[in-house]
Each structure stands twice: as structure tokens, then as C-alpha cells.
């Protein structure tokens, strides 16, 4: 199984604030890979760097062997790499249907778009019912469904998902994760899933990384990560102290 997406020593900053301090990870074709980390660890920054929203200061992002770091976001979408952003980011005053059409902005094949529209309505029947409604009027869960559906309309081979469970009830979270799993299994879409909710993420992920203060501090298969003592304590039991110990976690808290 080849790697579709590879990050090598990626460093990204916001002005003087260095958010990523050399992140390397590999996403194999057809798999679900998760990146776990507390608030502020650099998860969103990692995904923004991959999507071309910010250019890394150092390091490479390789998509299917080609370096894409620093490319314009629309070229990256056209290449087949789409993100479901943190906090859904729907177009609030556009109808659900127009939001979906914007997901297909980079495409020219009207027939394919119509097929994919039917496909996402199959995954999320509620979106068909609400097709004419403004996206801003949907509930949080429905907006998350819309954000996922909108990304699928680009017909991506890789989807980046930034905390899809954020702010959702456990029941809705489970629903969303079931669909993420189905999209991966039924459509062969590779998924890079970023989460604070390690419990759900490790259930669906083939492989996982743990990100702390801009660095990968641990990696293993999803099943084995779920077994590890410190992951269980810190991410699954939500006790204090990071994988690298108490001090770092305290410092992180201060930064927020």
C-alpha cells in the first residue's frame, strides 16, 4: 500500500508563533489515519498546511509523490485533496444545495456532479429534505453533515477532517463516525482525521499519531494506541498530564 500523503519535517508559523515544529506523518492509500492532540497542539495548523491555506516555513508535503507545499488551495482541491474544516464553515446564507454545488466548484463534469449529489443525499437524507433551506439555519449536526457532503462533491481521493465531533452529542458523533467509516470502506476515500475525541477516532482509525505542542510524540496502529497506558489515561480517561508528562500540559494550558 503506497502512501498518498506524506509530511516530512513540516514547520509552520503564525508570524512569530511557531505552531508546528517538524511534523512527519504518512497516510497510506485507502486507510483512515488519525492525529490526536489536545487543544492548541497544532492539529488544525497541520491540516491548513496540507490544504495550502498556509505555507510551511520548512519541510515537504507530498501528495502522490509530488511536493504540494505552498501551492494555491484551489490547485490542491483539483488534485483530489479536500478538507472538512473545523467548525463546519458552511456558507450560512446559501441554500444547502448551493453549498453542495460550491463543493463541486472545481469540477466541469455535470453528470458526475449530479451522481455525487445523489450519493451524498443517500448518506445524509436530511440534506435532501433541507436542500432549499439556508445552511445557517441547520443544527450543528446537520451542518457537520453538510460540510462532509460538500467535501465529497469535489470527488476527492483524500479527505482531511478537522474535529468532526466538535460540539456534537455522543449520539450524533457516533452517527457521523459511522458515515466516515462507510465513506472510507464503500468509496475507498483515504481519510486523515484530526480529533480530540480519541475514543471515537481510535475506533475507526487504522493508524494514529499523537501531536503535542507541534511535534509528533507517538505513533502506532489505532488498536495498539488505544491500549497504551498514557493514551488511555490522558485522552480516553481525560486525566491530567500529556504523553510527555505533566509540565508540558500545564504550559499548554497557560498559552490558551
Amino acid at each position, binding site marked *: 500500500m503506497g502512501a498518498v500523503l506524506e509530511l516530512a519535517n513540516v514547520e509552520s508559523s503564525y508570524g512569530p508563533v511557531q505552531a508546528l515544529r517538524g511534523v512527519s506523518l504518512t497516510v497510506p492509500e485507502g486507510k483512515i489515519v488519525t492525529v490526536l492532540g489536545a487543544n492548541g497542539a497544532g492539529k488544525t495548523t497541520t491540516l491548513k498546511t496540507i*490544504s495550502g*491555506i498556509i505555507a510551511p516555513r520548512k519541510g515537504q508535503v507530498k501528495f502522490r509523490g509530488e511536493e504540494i507545499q505552498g501551492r494555491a488551495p*484551489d490547485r490542491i482541491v483539483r488534485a483530489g485533496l479536500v478538507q472538512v474544516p473545523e467548525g463546519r*464553515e458552511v456558507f*450560512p*446564507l*446559501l441554500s444547502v444545495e448551493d453549498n453542495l*454545488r*460550491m463543493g463541486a466548484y472545481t469540477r466541469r463534469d455535470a453528470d458526475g456532479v449530479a451522481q455525487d449529489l445523489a450519493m451524498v443525499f443517500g448518506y445524509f437524507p436530511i440534506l435532501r429534505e433541507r436542500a432549499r433551506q439556508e445552511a445557517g439555519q441547520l443544527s450543528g449536526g446537520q451542518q457537520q453533515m453538510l460540510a462532509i457532503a*460538500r467535501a465529497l462533491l469535489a470527488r476527492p481521493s483524500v479527505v482531511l477532517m478537522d474535529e468532526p465531533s466538535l460540539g456534537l452529542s455522543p449520539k450524533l458523533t457516533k452517527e457521523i463516525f459511522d458515515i466516515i467509516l462507510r465513506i472510507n470502506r464503500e468509496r475507498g476515500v483515504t481519510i486523515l482525521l484530526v480529533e480530540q475525541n480519541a475514543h471515537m477516532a481510535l475506533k475507526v482509525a487504522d493508524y494514529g499519531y499523537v501531536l503535542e505542542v507541534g511535534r509528533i510524540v507517538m505513533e502506532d496502529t489505532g488498536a495498539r494506541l488505544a491500549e497504551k497506558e498514557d493514551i488511555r489515561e490522558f485522552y480516553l480517561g481525560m486525566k491530567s498530564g500529556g504523553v510527555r508528562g505533566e509540565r508540558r500540559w500545564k504550559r499548554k494550558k497557560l498559552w490558551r
Partner: protein
Amino acid sequence: MLGQSLQLLFAGVAQGCVYALVALGFVLIYKATETVNFAQGDMMMLGAFFGLTAATILGWPYWATILFAITVMAVIGMGLERVVLRPVLGYPTFTVVMITIGIGYVIRGIVTMVPGWGTETHALPTPFGNGVVRIGGAVIAVEQIAVIGMTAALVAALFLFFRFAKLGVAMQATSQNQLAAYYMGIPVQRVNMMIWGLSAGVAAFGGILLAPVAFVHSNMGFIGLKAFPAAVLGGFGSVPGAIVGGLIIGIVESFAGFHLAEGFKDVAAYVVVLAVLLVRPSGIFGETVSKKV
């Protein structure tokens, strides 16, 4: 009495149409880039001069004149975005606004230097002549009816464009959530450039429509001082609001100019804006959903 009111109404709506078109330009650019383009009035003026050139020097028919002015201004609008505005992206709003004011000065300066344009006033020939239509007791100029009809046609075309065309929906999407637009692979910069082109084209159309009502001259861009409150009145950031706001200001001016003492005409627009903002601080069509950048 009724006939006279109808007459004032038509005159006001015709003038208001031009305010509306300039206000529309303000709003389109503001929604997309959060920048108030204070050169909007001067872009209208420049468009009118291009129309004038096509009509008088090239001798083109009216319709060709309109298309020419819109096209040239659309290109200039896109060029301004690309060359002047894009490099200052991310600078404080104040800086960007000062730059648009500067663009206005430069346009006015250039126009006065162009041979044949200069500082004189020019009349733009129109095919509408001096015909009048009598409705009840009112005598209404065909020119005014034409201005209203053409504005209505443009607004309808814009409505269809924003509602159904992929690019039009993408312009709305980019205005509502720029970050999400990037994530969807919408080329945000190019879309913003086209919005500048669209605003400049709409301004040119307004400039040509203003020509039967007023003369073409290098200071006609100061009409922006009326169009700006029109945009505020409608709820800055609302497209229907810009149009309604423009019409209201045109109508108020028309009636104030007739019924009130000299000088009240220009103040009346601002009085109405203040009164409306006291009741509805976000304007008539003020949006409640806050924008994400």
C-alpha cells in the same frame, strides 16, 4: 397635485436608479473584501467618459456605447484589484480605504488631462430625445422611463446571475465565508478580481444612465457622496438594500427639492439616513448573520 407628485416621483426614481447602481458597486466590493471603495463614484465618471468617447468621437450607437463603457471599466476594475489592491491585502482597513480615495483622485486628475475630456461639461447623446409621456396630469420624460427600465433590466440580470450562475453563487459564497471558499477550491483572489470588474462595470452603466439627467464632467463622481448614504440606508452589505436605499434617496431629494427651500435638497438625504439608522441601526436590510473572513 397628484400629477405633479407623480412627476416628482418619476424624476426621483430615475435619479435614485443611478444612486442605486453606484451604491451597488460599494456593496459588492464591501461584501467581498470588507473594503469601502471610495473611488466608486469616480469609476462611474470614468465610465461615462468612455461612453462619451465612443458616442461622440467614434460615433457608435447608444447600445454599443454602453457595452463599450461597461467592458472597458470592467477591465480597469479588475486591473485595479490586481495591481493596486491585491498587494495591500491584509493591511489595516484604514490603509486600504485611503488607497481607494487616492485612486479616485488619480482618476479625476487623469480625466482632466485627457484631450477632449478635460474639465468642461459634455452632453452624451441618447436616442430618447426630448419625448414625454402624459400619465394623468403628469408629464414624464421618456429619458426617465428609459433610465428606470434599463436599471430594472440590469438588476434583473444581476439577480439571475447571483442566483443561478456558478460564478455568481461563488461570489456570494466568497463574501459569506472566505476561508470556506478557499477550502472548496474557489480561486478567491480571482473571484474578488471579478467582483471589482463587476462593480466597475455597474458603475459605468450608472454613469451613462446619469448622462441624460446630468452632464458628463470630471466632478460627476461626487455623486458617490449620495450613493454612499444610500448603501448605508439599505444596510451596508445588502444588495437589495443598496437598490432600495438609492431609490429612497432619489425620491426624497426630488420631493425635498420641490417642496422645501433651496439647499434642503442635499441635506434631506442625510436626514433620512440618520432617521432610519436611529430606528434600525443596521439599515433597512441589515444582515444579522455575521461574516467570517
